[in-house]
């Protein structure tokens, strides 16, 4: 078990290192740290001296090491666009994205799982067919289109929900939350649905597919042959076996929620990291891009690790195998 955990940690570290390498390459070679910081008038000698001072002539491994060291201390350089430390920019916007992502994820799970179970158990009902058709919409429509349609329906036509911004926020230490104000809550509804609709449709279809598979297994057949009630068979046995892979996939999907937040934040002008990243891409603001990459990679890798460990905790076969293996 311990060996397994250590192995996974090393794997995670490896991935982070690769990403750090990419981010470093981006930072050092695609952008020019000097030209973005100084004006045109600065002399060649001054630039050369600046290069020396900033350590840009040191051997590459040293520069890479410095880069990683700085990153670990949350020093990601200065933004080309805003001339402020990247970490400040990101830190300010991190809570907005996280709140949006978490609310969306919760929404998609709370609706996706029950609906998936329903459509698996009631295959032929008209409601199931309808839900399946709607879920096809959910995974076919691009996120931005869903956002625009929702804005058109609820903000423009009906005028009941806001189309922009986060509403009023409350500051709690370094975190800002919009969930404690009425305007904040109203503001998060449309973005959360937009972001979560795809996930919800995905989870619903996944739960349905998994459950149908599970219902075909021998142990379900045997459970029925023992005369267990439908409730025990469907919810006691089938559901538990279905949720194990579903929960892990749903967990991994959280990473893509954070990525899709880029789009949602653009549509709703939500002041989060995603919008910041997009502006960075549009303006070739390399430090912000590379910092976002590192941060997001760290989140993804952490999620993957947690999900893997969770899987081991839930599925006794793997748990006991790794103990003896």
């Amino acid at each position, binding site marked *: 078990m311990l060996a397994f955990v250590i192995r996974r940690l090393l794997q995670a570290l490896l991935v982070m290192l690769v990403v750090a390498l990419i981010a470093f390459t981006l930072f050092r070679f695609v952008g020019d740290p000097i030209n973005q910081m100084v004006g045109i008038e600065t002399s060649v000698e001054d630039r050369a001296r600046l290069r020396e001072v900033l350590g840009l002539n040191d051997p590459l491994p040293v520069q890479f090491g410095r880069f990683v060291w700085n990153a670990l201390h949350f020093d990601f350089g200065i933004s080309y666009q805003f001339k402020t430390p990247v970490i400040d920019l990101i830190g300010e916007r991190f809570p907005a994205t996280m709140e949006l992502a978490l609310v969306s994820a919760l929404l998609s799970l709370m609706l996706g799982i029950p609906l998936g179970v329903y459509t698996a158990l009631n295959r032929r009902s008209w409601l199931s067919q309808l839900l399946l058709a709607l879920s096809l919409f959910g995974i076919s429509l*691009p*996120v931005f289109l869903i956002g625009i349609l929702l804005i058109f329906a609820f903000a423009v036509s009906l005028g009941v929900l806001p189309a922009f911004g986060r509403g009023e926020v409350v500051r709690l230490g370094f975190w800002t939350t919009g969930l404690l104000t009425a305007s904040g809550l109203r503001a998060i509804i449309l973005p959360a649905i937009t972001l979560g609709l795809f996930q919800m449709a995905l989870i619903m279809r996944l739960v349905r597919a998994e459950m149908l598979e599970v219902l075909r297994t021998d142990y379900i057949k045997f459970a029925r042959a023992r005369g267990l009630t439908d409730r025990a068979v469907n919810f006691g046995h089938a559901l538990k076996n279905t949720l194990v892979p579903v929960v892990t996939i749903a967990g991994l999907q959280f990473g893509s929620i954070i990525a899709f937040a880029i789009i949602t934040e653009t549509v709703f002008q939500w002041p989060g990291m995603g919008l910041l990243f997009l502006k960075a891409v549009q303006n070739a603001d390399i430090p912000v891009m590379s910092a976002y990459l590192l941060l997001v990679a760290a989140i993804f890798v952490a999620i993957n690790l947690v999900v893997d460990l969770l899987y081991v905790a839930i599925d006794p076969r793997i748990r006991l195998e790794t103990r003896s293996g």
Partner: protein
Amino acid sequence: MDAPSQPVKPDARSQGRLAAFLDNDIVYSFLRSKVTVVAAAVTLVIVLAAFLSPFIAPHDPFDLRQVSLLDSHMPPAWAAEGDRRFLLGTDDQGRDVFSTILYGARISLIVGVLAVAFAAALGIVLGLTAGYVGGAVDSLIMRAADVQLTFPAILIALLIDGTVRALFGEGRNEEMVFWVLVVSIGLSSWVAYARTVRGSTLVEKNKDYVLAARLIGLHPAVILFRHVLPNVIGPVLVIATINLGIAIILEATLSFLGVGLPPTQPSLGTMISIGNKFLFSGEWWIAIFPGITLAVLVLAVNLLGDWLRDALNPKLR
């Protein structure tokens, strides 16, 4: 007491060839599912309309002589201030929305198909190599795949685009933008193909006919392409159809975000982003019509992919 023999229809081969074709399981399940037939028909209509756009579009939205600011912001033909020349209205530049949709759909489809082809080609080659050669090469490719899989496609595509933008600045022309789009979408989706093909290659590698081919001295590439590849086409096709829907959405998203196709050569996504600005002032048609077209197109492609997956799945037959 005689029991009658089973009341079973005569074998398909004894019927005519057309009847035999219609009797084939895959074709049967296709025709049986009304939804799929409709989806295929819709896709066909859109594809044809898109590719015939130079011929059937009432206006050429890129011909600056035809486009006039005087015509801008006009609502669809059936509205009060509409003009029968512009069926679905005009945008802020005076371009006919309907014509722009046709051209836009065309570009969206071309980018999507090219990106899928690129991803498939890359994925197949890497998958075959990883499966056949094995060892360190296999490990390397699979590790790269794992690392890439931790990141959603949109992120990868955005990163590639941002990098190119930083490297070339404003010196990028339209053609470069087009190819960067194709490559970045393609690069973000090769993994699924590679994994499937690798799996099949591993299975086929140990079969007798491959060993025999190696004994004769056939070059590995020949063995791979002529013998292993045909066995893998089925799953690859399924992945490709799902991938096409995703590629179209990716391109539309990138264009919407402003890092895809520019307004001078708009795809459906670009049009929607333009129209987004005018939603609140009541000019909904600039965004909504392209939006509907995009939605219908992707939906149809996904339905086809769903049906194909079920039809090719041996377990469900």
